[in-house]
């Protein structure tokens, strides 16, 4: 999807858990090629919104629709660079798909990858295996050839391993390739999780508090990785983050949630100046 095009549209999204309304009529739109931050107080529904986007939660009503270029998806051809901005949009076969009716694995197949608020890695697998799972949607799953190993199964493993290695290089994870992720330090695990999502070569990356629990130094590193991913791989990113400094610095657009409702939307500066946002989220201290 060329930059600047609408990529993801959330309309009238409502999500209820029993008596609790986590999201109420949320409308927002993510443009291709941006880093779009979602902020808001705890319990505002940010993670829930992300979960709706990735198919983990089924909303009570409303929809999330993803637009994608037909050729980009599902054929394992995402190793080519994303369509250049100059490409003629009309010549592309752009389709739209409602994510809200899809199970999570189908959403992933459309090129939406994510990380989780509390690291959800495959603890007993190595860093490489975790990242190879990121390649899952691009691989053919054939039990019989897998059992035989020699031939197609082996060739396929090698081909995908090459792509994973690029991600390993990008995120500087070389030293940890064969380590079971469960034993790694928190910061590294966060990076592996990012890597796993990247390995999927997504067109949209959803990150839920990738810097939570990090100190200043690690945050800087993580911010750098996110920017690199955004710039080098041309991925659009939806980012939940509480640290306003990070949000201000790296995001192009910000949506603010409070009690499940959108209370602000715009450029970081616009949002910072929005009195409702200051009152509900930032507090007087941050506004000064």
């Amino acid at each position: 999807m060329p930059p600047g095009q609408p990529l993801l549209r959330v309309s009238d999204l409502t999500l209820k858990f029993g008596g609790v309304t986590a999201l109420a009529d949320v409308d927002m739109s993510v443009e291709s090629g941006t880093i779009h931050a979602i902020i808001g107080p705890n319990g505002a529904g940010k993670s829930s919104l992300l979960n709706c986007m990735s198919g983990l939660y089924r909303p009570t009503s409303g929809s999330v629709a993803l637009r994608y270029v037909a050729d980009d998806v599902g054929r394992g051809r995402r190793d080519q660079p994303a369509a250049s901005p100059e490409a003629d949009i009309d010549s592309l076969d752009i389709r739209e798909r409602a994510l809200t009716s899809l199970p999570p694995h189908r959403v992933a197949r459309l090129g939406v990858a994510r990380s989780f608020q509390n690291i959800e890695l495959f603890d007993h697998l190595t860093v490489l295996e975790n990242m190879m799972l990121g390649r899952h949607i691009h691989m053919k799953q054939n039990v019989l050839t897998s059992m035989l190993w020699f031939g197609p199964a082996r060739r396929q493993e090698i081909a995908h391993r090459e792509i994973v290695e690029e991600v390993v290089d990008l995120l500087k994870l070389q030293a940890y390739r064969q380590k079971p992720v469960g034993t790694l330090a928190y910061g590294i695990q966060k990076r592996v999780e990012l890597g796993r999502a990247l390995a999927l070569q997504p067109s949209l990356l959803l990150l839920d508090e990738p810097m939570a629990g990090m100190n200043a130094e690690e945050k800087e590193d993580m911010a750098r990785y996110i920017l690199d991913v955004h710039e080098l791989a041309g991925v659009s990113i939806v980012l939940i983050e509480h640290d306003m400094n990070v949000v201000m610095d790296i995001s192009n657009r910000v949506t603010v949630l409070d009690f499940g409702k959108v209370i602000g939307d715009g450029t970081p500066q616009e949002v910072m100046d929005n009195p409702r946002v200051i009152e509900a989220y930032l507090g007087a201290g941050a506004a000064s």
Partner: protein
Amino acid sequence: MAVLAVIVIILPFILDDYWLALANTALIAAIGAIGLNILVGYTGQISLGQGGFLAVGAFTSAILTDRLGMPAPVSIIGAVMLTAAIGVIVGLPALRLKGLYLAIATLASQMVILFIVRRWEFLTEGQGFLDVARLEVFGFRLDRANFEQQWYMILLVLAILAALTATNLFRTGVGRSFMAVRDQDIAASAMGVNLTRAKLTAFAVSNGYVGLAGALMAHYTEILSWEKFTLDVSILYLAMIIVGGMGSVAGAVYGAVFITLLPVLVREVADVVGGAVPIIRDQLPAVEHGVFGLTIIVFLIFEPRGLNRIWERIKDWFGYWPFRY
């Protein structure tokens, strides 16, 4: 490695029939345990239904051969496929169940399958057991004198194939998706793993091996009755993978051999010390049972990763010998 291979190959020429029969039983168990480990150890879906699945494989193959006159290899393949299919049916509830709920659902399948095996007169023609004709492969009929040796060769080849194919499976995406489901199913689905498909595939693949083990059991023991497939058998197989090492193909093999030989070992010991402690000899089945339980406990407490881990440590030690570390 080479030494081991030589030992395994000359085994049939040095062991007598009794020990060869044990070896054969262990090889069949190894195939079944590999299957169970795929489901339990690698995919994290607990199954107490192993006994019932073995029964499906065994009776299918026996009936296809004896009543429909199919060649044994064909009926064995038929048994593998049917058992895999039954696995998928039983796996369906697994899609929504977790932990103990799943364990008990598989316990239910064990009970129901066993009930059918006991009560469905068609299976044994009302006799309560089923005779299976001597194995004949491509016109070659095993002879009585070399029965155990010939079976040993057949089973050895099949067990090695089973171990290899299972190992290969976990070098590829399919196997990885099983492990992903085990470690973190939500994340797995967010990475594009179809949980339904992965779990059902795991049930099918696992049961394929179990069906093979069941079919071999039928042809090897030449007689089938429901008592070979009780809940105790399910537990026996779980013990194999616990003792051998969960989530390890080699572990399943070690575990199968160990658990098959355990009662023999207990009996030998009982023969020796029985004079001094008569209760051990007089209550042998109880003692065997108790030792079995104790083995599980001891392994879980002291080496939860099983014989496989112990073996690795030994290899490391010798690898570094004479320098430790």
